[in-house]
């Protein structure tokens, strides 16, 4: 990944990270019942937030460092989780609610921000999944 790509990703992370706290999809419920959900969040909510913050910090550090990015399996998973959260937050911000959303936008819209940002994050995530798959 070149310096420009790293800077672009770092900026994207900086802009999207604050959205994670409020996003419906990045804070999903475990239980339908409110009391059970409250108990579940009491038990794991802060751990989940911390785990996500830790993953994003690893990604941010790698993007900001002036060395080639080389990821072991554990670091790859941190990137994968982070990218997924960022994609979910951006999609929610764009009002994407259901499958088939791609067809509602013109090719031109797909090539420009903010959709292009979503596609970039998707591409990086797919590359990492493929890297894991190929062992």
């Amino acid at each position, binding site marked *: 990944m070149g310096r420009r790509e790293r800077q672009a990703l770092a900026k994207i992370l900086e802009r999207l990270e604050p959205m994670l706290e409020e996003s419906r999809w990045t804070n999903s419920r475990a239980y339908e019942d409110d009391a059970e959900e409250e108990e579940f969040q009491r*038990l794991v909510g802060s751990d989940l937030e911390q785990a996500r913050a830790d993953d994003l910090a690893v990604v941010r550090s790698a993007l900001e460092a002036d060395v080639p990015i080389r990821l072991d399996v554990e670091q790859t998973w941190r990137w994968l989780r982070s990218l997924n959260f960022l994609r979910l937050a951006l999609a929610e911000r764009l009002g994407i609610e259901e499958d088939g959303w791609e067809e509602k936008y013109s090719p031109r819209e797909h090539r420009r921000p903010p959709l292009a940002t979503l596609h970039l994050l998707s591409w990086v995530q797919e590359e990492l999944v493929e890297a894991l798959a190929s062992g």
Partner: protein
Amino acid sequence: MSAIEELAAQGTGTSDQTEQHRDHPWRVIVWNDPVTLMSYVVFVLRRLFGYDLETATQLMLKVHNEGSAVVATEARERAEVTVAQLHAHGLQATLARD
């Protein structure tokens, strides 16, 4: 070890449960969302449950095509940990009594 992996190692517990209630099976359900990559879902299912590629792919397709799929049936405490791990990977997941 990440915070969520420590959580998995410790397990979670809900208070005031009888042995019978604790052992009663609960379904862990993964729900579709319009952006999570199918390839990623398959990998998460393989990582968390040890499913082979075919099983994980079938479950992912069920989530994608039908809106949701039961990915595990476990005792409540274990199911809570599993759902927390799915949430930690950004998947929409719930648990419900079997």
